């Protein structure tokens, strides 16, 4: 049973989502502010966080950034506004996915399950791309022998790209493969995640040699020549 932490300041929404998510089969802990949420997160170590953006005190973006400093667990943003700037800032601060209020519980549940699936182990071998070693069975990635801390989404993105080295994958394909979104996904999810992944795996993130942009198409993982 997945253990979720719900951080939402509005009592009604918190209660409603807690009810609905519990009913979907999750164990839910709820917090009414960013500070409470961070405290609960440290005490209870949930599997996933559903995080409201607009919070009194430290806001959702900041909560997201603070968690990302130490932990790579999945975070789904709950934004009241689908204003583009919110989405972009949220994805940059390290969120894995986002949903817009008013969200239907079954949609949120689908997102939660999709995110959690990204961390599941596979029965497969490992492969190396230069100094980068991707161990699919252990679900670890090392660079120069050092363990890289990747979120499940980043890891899944890297796995999907590494499964087809040298082949360009469109953003919509990646949305389907990694996020399990259908045809109408938000391609900014892919862009933001690629940025974060590059920051971790590339020697020079601004001049990527592994995860290459294919203009007008999407991305591909190149084996180093």
């Amino acid at each position, binding site marked *: 049973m997945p253990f979720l932490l719900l951080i939402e300041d509005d009592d009604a929404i918190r209660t409603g*989502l807690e009810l609905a998510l519990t*009913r979907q089969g999750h164990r839910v802990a709820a917090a009414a502010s960013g500070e409470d949420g961070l405290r609960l997160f440290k005490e209870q170590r949930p599997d996933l966080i559903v995080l409201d953006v607009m919070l009194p005190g430290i806001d959702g973006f900041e909560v997201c950034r603070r968690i990302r400093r130490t932990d790579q667990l999945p975070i789904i943003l709950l934004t*009241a506004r*689908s*204003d583009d700037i919110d989405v972009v800032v949220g994805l940059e601060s390290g969120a894995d996915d986002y949903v817009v209020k008013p*969200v239907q519980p079954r949609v949120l549940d689908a997102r939660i399950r999709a995110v959690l699936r990204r961390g599941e182990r596979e029965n497969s071998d490992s492969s190396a791309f230069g100094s980068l070693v991707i161990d699919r069975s252990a679900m670890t990635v090392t660079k120069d022998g050092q363990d890289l801390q990747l979120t499940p989404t980043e890891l899944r993105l890297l796995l999907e790209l590494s499964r087809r080295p040298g082949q360009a994958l469109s953003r919509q394909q990646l949305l389907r493969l990694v996020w399990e979104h259908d045809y109408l996904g938000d391609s900014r999810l892919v862009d933001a995640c690629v940025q974060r992944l590059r920051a971790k795996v590339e020697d020079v993130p601004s001049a990527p040699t592994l995860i290459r942009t294919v203009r007008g198409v999407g991305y591909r993982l190149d084996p180093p020549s």
Partner: protein
Amino acid sequence: MTDHQNGRRQVWRRRLRLSSLRVRLAAVFAVVALTAAVSASGIAYWLNRDAVLKRAQDTALNDFRVSLSRSVQGLPLNAGCPALAQLASEVASSGLSYNVVVVDDNQPDCTAVSDPRFTAAQVPHALQMAVTTPRPVGPGNPNEYHLYWQRVNLDGQPYVVGGTRVVPTGPTAYMFKSLDNERADLNTLGWSLAVATLLALIAATLLAQAASATVLRPVRQLADAARRLGEGKLDTRLEVSGTDELSDLARTFNSTAEALSEQVEELSAREAQSRRFVADMSHELRTPLTAMTAVTDILEDEADALDPMIEPAVRLVVSETRRLSDLVENLMEVTRFDAGTAKLVADEMDIADLVMSCIDGRAWYDAVEVDAPRGVRAVVDPRRLDVVFANLIGNALKHGGSPVKVTVRQGVGPTGAGEVVVRVTDSGPGIPEEVLPHVFDRFYKADKGRARSEGSGLGLSIAMANAQIHGGTITAANGEQGGAVFTLRLPLRPAGTGAAADGGSADGGSAGGGSAGSSGRPSAPERGGRDDAGDFGDGGGSADFGDRGDFGGSGGSGDGTERRSEQ
């Protein structure tokens, strides 16, 4: 580019038009200056000429008279030809340089000249007559013969010819005095005057230029300011200096612009206020709606187990909550378009895939006929386009009835650029003519009598706004068979997405799948079937993902009614 050229042409035309006033001013100044200079120079020239010539010839004639009367005293009566020649050269060499011809009527063959170039034949006949004709002696005229003169041109040289009869019976002497020096002097004078006139003309033109500039600059500034004001730059003001009529005009312009901008500001402030109100209100509505939506699923799941008296009430709450949620969602979307914060997240997509995905996701297979060859690719925001398709098809199903026909074609736009044309035709009675212009208006209900429509009343206007943000448009008309026809036209590449469009065919792979979707109902795996996606075509895994419209408020849920009906 062409706009730029047009603008430039207009500026030039304006300059030319303005300069016509300038040309007129310059012309007037020039005419005045020319008239003054020419008349002054002319008068000066003629006065000078007269004075110079008169002095020269008077001097020569006086000298001739004196010298002749002195020399003639030594002349014997009935002097022979050599004596006459002697006389001629004596007189000629006596004083000023002139040439002398002496003629004696009694010796017609005698040529007494000081210079062989000058002969009696060159003396004008009229002068000869005047000189040789005796005048009756009276109280006012003591002598029979007088000294006469005439100006002539000999071989292009100006001369004054004077002549007189020495004594009543004696020979006649003529003098040729060259006026060449005087002519040279006068020519110099003439040239000087012409140059002076020219200078006066140039000065006048410059003066006219300066004068016209002082008038035209404010006029041009005023014209520019008026143009800028017309372009909507309401903060345009003119610098006012001086108290003349033009600065009065500038002052009037400024106060007019001030009043105008105040009014516009007030109006736009009011409009912004009301838009903000709508945005804030829908935003505020969203929080309770989120809480309510969160529990509607629970209520719905439990509805069957409830008391038959309560169950309809619960279902009503559930369905109306969803309706309200859609309405608020659409309102938010509209306010985003109004505020200009709606953004395009564009990707290169196959339009046929999008149409299929839209119909597929809403279970409209049975009611919609699709003629959409794959391979029509365009750079679009897939979620926004999905809203457009959902609204157009949903509207056609709702008001026109099935079968609804959707065709996708690639066409050529009015500017010659490629465009995507999607036509949605229904089988209904069509749209009344008086309603046609309003179908994209917000909350416009064709049937006023219908108290509650299933839609939010915003669907088509949101579809239109979504088409427009792509640089495209939607038109509504009635087909030949009577049904309503909505035509969506989108540029293949919306402006500003050039980078995303580069080399776009790499994952296109339309070659293999050219007609896969043309017959209507692709199976689910095919939907994802890009050419390089064969090995993960079933990766969607969206079994528990029944609702696809949820995703972003900014695009995913413009057609709530149809979506809900499938659940």
